[in-house]
């Protein structure tokens, strides 16, 4: 393997165990060809039940109106938009892994990118539900699209961040889906070509689009992936920037800050990586993929979590500083009174956010804890709770005390149907993820094969020998030259 000698020996292998290309195919396709386990069925049924509860909650909301939720004139955005921002944020880690790390030539992305991209797509699907059903008269949802109409024509407002969001989210979903699917085509062909059952041959034959593995097609495929990664990179940054504009371009104290775009993007990646950890720690165990999603992968992602968590922490502190330094009484009140004051009605949520997002991830400075699966799983859940509260804090604590004290809100708590809608999106997310993990290759087969001879454990051993030998001979040559 002389041609792959440039891979550093200092780095741990990304694929454990001694494997060849065929073994990689076997390992990844095996769960697809085996009947689903009992655990899969239990998880799937629970997810579908949650989804049905969500559908019923939406049915109530559509039938009786937005009054089914505890929103009112002062708190117009409550759980609903909190959940929207939370789900969009989760999606961002998938694109970061699939696109940005591809441009940065990070080999470790290969083990986790397929599942992370799937997570992106399902998370954006969940996110999209919230603004749509929040409209109330959902049958008029198409009014958000600019098209010539008989109402004037009355166009949408292109200067409004809410319309930017329509474009950002729909483009993000479409591009992520195309990127994901173009990567899946060769892997579907792998499953198709080894399928014995008639229905499997038919289904994967349709999904694989007649892929053959021709060199010319691979050349175009590589070029396509690279350009899509190049397009997705600014896209993913723009999406959460635009989401933050929904708040930052308003004149509401607590929202009206220029720090929002980078702060939102960092938070999105932070929560997204936590969700990737939650999903993959279970997936690798259940599907026996520990050789592909290794301790190295988990450790690297924990490093991203401590980094982005600290960026978010600095953003929180900067906001507080500017609120004090700016001497704007309204902004000062929103930050010092409505958030920082633990005994204000929602002060508890601010401190919960601080504890979950800023303080607790600091444990990942310790290598031992970064490499501990139980700690990682626990932390991934904590981070996502914290990030949900971040959005809750931003939305509710900024608006529940208006400019006019007479319109200050009574204590806002969600109705069962508001909670039900949120649980329903969990149902949607996990139903999709369970189907994905059963019928789709959870790891990008062709891409793993691509790094196998550089970063596979057995190949690394061989290379270590080669490298050592050449270093020794170099030493002798230099030594001889000096005498």
């Amino acid at each position: 393997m002389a041609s792959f000698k440039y891979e550093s020996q200092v780095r741990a292998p990304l694929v454990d165990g001694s494997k060849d290309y065929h073994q990689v195919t076997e390992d990844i396709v095996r769960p697809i060809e085996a009947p689903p386990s009992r655990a899969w069925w239990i998880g799937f049924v629970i997810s579908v039940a949650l989804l049905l509860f969500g559908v019923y909650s939406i049915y109530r909301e559509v039938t009786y109106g937005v009054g089914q939720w505890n929103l009112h004139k002062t708190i117009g955005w409550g759980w609903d938009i909190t959940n929207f921002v939370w789900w969009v944020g989760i999606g961002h880690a998938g694109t970061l892994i699939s696109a940005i790390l591809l441009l940065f030539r990070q080999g470790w992305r290969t083990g986790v990118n397929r599942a992370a991209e799937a997570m992106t797509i399902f998370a954006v699907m969940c996110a999209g539900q919230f603004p749509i059903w929040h409209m109330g008269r959902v049958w008029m949802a198409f009014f958000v699209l600019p098209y010539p109409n008989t109402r004037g024509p009355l166009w949408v407002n292109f200067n409004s961040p809410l319309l930017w969001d329509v474009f950002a989210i729909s483009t993000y979903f479409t591009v992520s889906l195309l990127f994901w699917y173009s990567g899946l085509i060769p892997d579907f062909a792998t499953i198709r070509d080894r399928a014995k059952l008639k229905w499997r041959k038919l289904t994967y034959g349709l999904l694989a689009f007649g892929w053959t593995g021709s060199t010319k097609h691979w050349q175009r495929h590589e070029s396509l992936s690279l350009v899509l990664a190049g397009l997705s990179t600014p896209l993913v940054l723009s999406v959460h920037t635009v989401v933050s504009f929904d708040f930052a371009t308003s004149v509401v104290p607590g929202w009206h800050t220029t720090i929002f775009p980078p702060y939102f993007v960092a938070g999105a990646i932070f929560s997204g990586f936590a969700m990737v950890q939650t999903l993959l720690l279970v997936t690798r165990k259940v599907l026996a993929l520990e050789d592909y999603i290794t301790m190295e992968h988990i450790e690297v992602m924990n490093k991203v979590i401590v980094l982005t968590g600290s960026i978010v922490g600095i953003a929180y502190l900067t906001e507080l500083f500017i609120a004090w330094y700016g001497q704007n009484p309204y902004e000062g009140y929103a930050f010092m009174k409505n958030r920082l004051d633990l005994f204000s009605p929602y002060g508890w949520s601010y401190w919960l956010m601080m504890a979950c997002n800023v303080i607790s991830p600091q444990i990942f400075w310790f290598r031992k804890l970064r490499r501990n699966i139980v700690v990682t799983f626990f932390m991934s859940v904590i981070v996502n709770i914290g990030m949900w509260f971040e959005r809750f804090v931003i939305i509710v604590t900024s608006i529940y005390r208006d400019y006019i004290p007479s319109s200050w809100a009574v204590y806002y708590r969600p109705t069962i149907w508001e909670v039900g809608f949120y649980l329903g999106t969990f149902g949607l997310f996990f139903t999709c993820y369970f189907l994905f993990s059963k019928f789709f290759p959870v790891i990008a087969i062709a891409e793993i094969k691509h790094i196998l001879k550089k970063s596979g454990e057995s190949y690394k051993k061989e290379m270590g020998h080669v490298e050592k030998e050449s270093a020794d001979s170099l030493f002798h040559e230099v030594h001889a030259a000096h005498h």
Partner: protein
Amino acid sequence: MAVKKFVVGCFNEEEQVFDAVKKARKIGYKLHDVYTPLPVHGLDKAMGLRDTSIHTAGFIYGITGTTIALSCIAWIFTQDWPLNIGGKPHFALPAWIPIMFEFTVLCAAVGMVLTFCYLCQLAPFVRKHHFHPRATDDKMVMVIEVTPKSDESEITGFLNTLKAEDVNTQIAETGWWLGRYDREQKLYSDETVSA
């Protein structure tokens, strides 16, 4: 397209394929294609394939998207329905940047994927001849076309000396047809299909 005769051989290692491609081109055999389960970097160059222009197509789709977004929004907000928003200018370019950017990305991505599928003839119900079932698993499958200038047994001997596995001759359709992978027959008769 056309039915032709091919000699097929399989390799396990990338190095073997590079070696075989170089030697085959030196002798002057007509390389039909090499089918690999993973992208083998540099193989396209070794085979003498030209670079793909798909990224150029992507650029053109992208700027088309930018132009469409800018011209449509500009026309709507300055000509068709000029809204007075606090007396601000109708031509509010900075506020349009997000949508122009998103639409650029959307057009570039959708256009490129469609172009990719068109160039590689990828679609549901598209069927092609597969020279070896493990070309998508672990074998690098080299396919050499038998032309009037080359001899079938000579090519077979050539592949055998390179230690290729499963060397065999196949007569195959080079184009695609409408079909399903669980059935052998075509969805339509030959007259209705033209590649």
